[in-house]
């Protein structure tokens, strides 16, 4: 099947440091793939390149038939790639409700004067956006919290809100950057269930970075292992984690520690 997201030869250097070197990936419709690797391996760099936070030195990023490399972040999001962050980036002082609403920005469908004069189109569109926002908050168990500032939520709910907000932009590809960071085993189990549910209900492809191997093992059919900016292995999770190179670069550290 034709991949939704195809990345070829993606590279980025900072000074002399090759943060990402020749990264490649094919994400099919409905795929869940993972990127693992030690700290500083270049995983988040790859996400930043895909979402336009950094401009790639070379390489191609294609979403279906559209080339994304070099486009600004907001355009890339509108084309259908959305993400969460390792360190949660919510609009902290805004309410849960307003956080979700930001995702609808480019689909407002009304102009300044229609809003200023309170014309029917403004009111109808706002009503629809409110309904959709509410549906997202309910789906993620945040409806009761909607009037609270985002930074007052407990950590787990902040994670859920960030995922909900990313989904509200209606992505075709969702990038999750260490969604299980800082979670205990019970919370991790819940998160795995949540991601499975999202994958089932929203018809999208997911690419996730994760340190917690259980998450990768249970969710991903295909895993990329990065070390010092390079992909040192790729394949099925079990096969990859048995690869001596991977054990040396990644798992070896943990055993030694």
């Amino acid at each position, binding site marked *: 099947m034709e991949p939704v997201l195809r990345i070829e030869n993606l590279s980025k250097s900072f000074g002399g440091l090759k943060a990402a070197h020749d990264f490649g990936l094919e994400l099919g419709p409905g795929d869940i793939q993972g990127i693992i690797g030690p700290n500083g391996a270049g995983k988040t760099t790859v996400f930043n390149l895909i*979402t*336009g*936070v950094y401009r790639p030195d070379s390489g191609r990023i294609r979403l279906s038939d559209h080339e994304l490399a070099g486009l*600004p*972040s*907001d355009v890339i*999001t*509108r084309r259908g790639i*959305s*993400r969460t*962050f390792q360190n949660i*980036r*919510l*609009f*902290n*002082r*805004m309410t849960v409700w*307003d956080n979700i*609403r*930001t*995702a*609808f*920005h*480019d689909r*407002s469908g009304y102009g*300044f004067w229609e*809003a*200023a004069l309170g014309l029917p189109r*403004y009111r109808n569109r*706002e009503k629809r*956006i409110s309904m959709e926002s509410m549906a997202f908050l309910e789906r993620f168990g945040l409806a009761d919290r909607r009037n609270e500032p985002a930074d007052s939520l407990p950590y787990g709910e902040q994670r859920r809100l960030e995922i909900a*907000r990313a989904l509200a*932009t209606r992505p075709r590809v969702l990038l999750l950057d260490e969604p299980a960071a800082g979670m205990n085993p019970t919370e991790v189990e819940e998160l795995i269930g949540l991601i499975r549910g999202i994958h089932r209900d929203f018809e999208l492809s997911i690419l996730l970075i994760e340190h917690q191997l259980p998450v990768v093992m249970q969710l991903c059919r295909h895993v990329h292992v990065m070390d010092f900016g390079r992909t040192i292995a790729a394949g099925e999770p079990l096969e990859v984690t048995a690869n001596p190179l991977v054990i040396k670069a990644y798992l070896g550290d943990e055993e030694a520690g």
Partner: protein
Amino acid sequence: MLDTVIQQLLNAAQLGAVYALIALGYTMVYGTIRLINFAHGDIFMLGGYIGFLLVTAVSGMPLVVMMPLAMLLTALVGMLIERVAYRRLRNAQRMSLVITALGVGIFLENLVRLLVGPQARQLPAQLPNGVVELFNGVVVTEDKILIIFISLALMVILWLFVHRTLMGTAMRAVADNKDAVQLMGINLNMVIAVTFAIGSALAAAGGIFFGQAYSIDPYMGIDLGWKAFIAAVIGGIGSIEGAVLGSFLLAGVEVLTVAYLSSNMKNGIAFGLLILLLLLRPNGIMGRPELKKV
């Protein structure tokens, strides 16, 4: 006695309204790009002059046409300034932006001086200036009431825009976490341009009202700009409600000082108030402590 007090309070409300129309631009721009836009007082001046030129060019142009038109034109100038002078410096050192803003202000003052001349001018009175009797013998002029009323209406519209529309939500989002905004599919440049447009349009309304109530000259933006900036800081820069509150508070203190103490002490008391308030509340009345990112 009561009559004088009410007159003074209305004077304070009128001055406070003009301060607020300017202060909102300071606070909104600061909120989105953390810039104290020192050219903003001069945008206020420019708004007054654009209004003046419009009524001079088309005599008999009514205020209901002139004011929205002047606000629109000033908004375009505000957007142009942001595009030409500030955008490239957005990620540069803060000081570069501030110096640029000061330079833009001096440029605007001298441009107007060169084109229209340095003398003070009076906007033709376009507001009805009859008097209304409030109650037994207390009369107020209609123009004063209208200036206060229209200004408050503009502030209410702004508040609704910021809190009830997606563009307003995006503006608050930019103020909250600029890094996350674009990843929501929001065009950051567009939101910042809209912020400048709205701030400039409000300042233009202030300039026109000021020209109606007093007079306009190329340097009027310096004094008024500083006062409005102080008002925004007193209220808590970055906060819209704070800017309005600070403006009326500052105007109240000034007008009452002039009326009951001495006009020489006006600025002394105003700046003294700023210092005192900032000692007690470094982030202003409505301001919240800046969150440091780790």
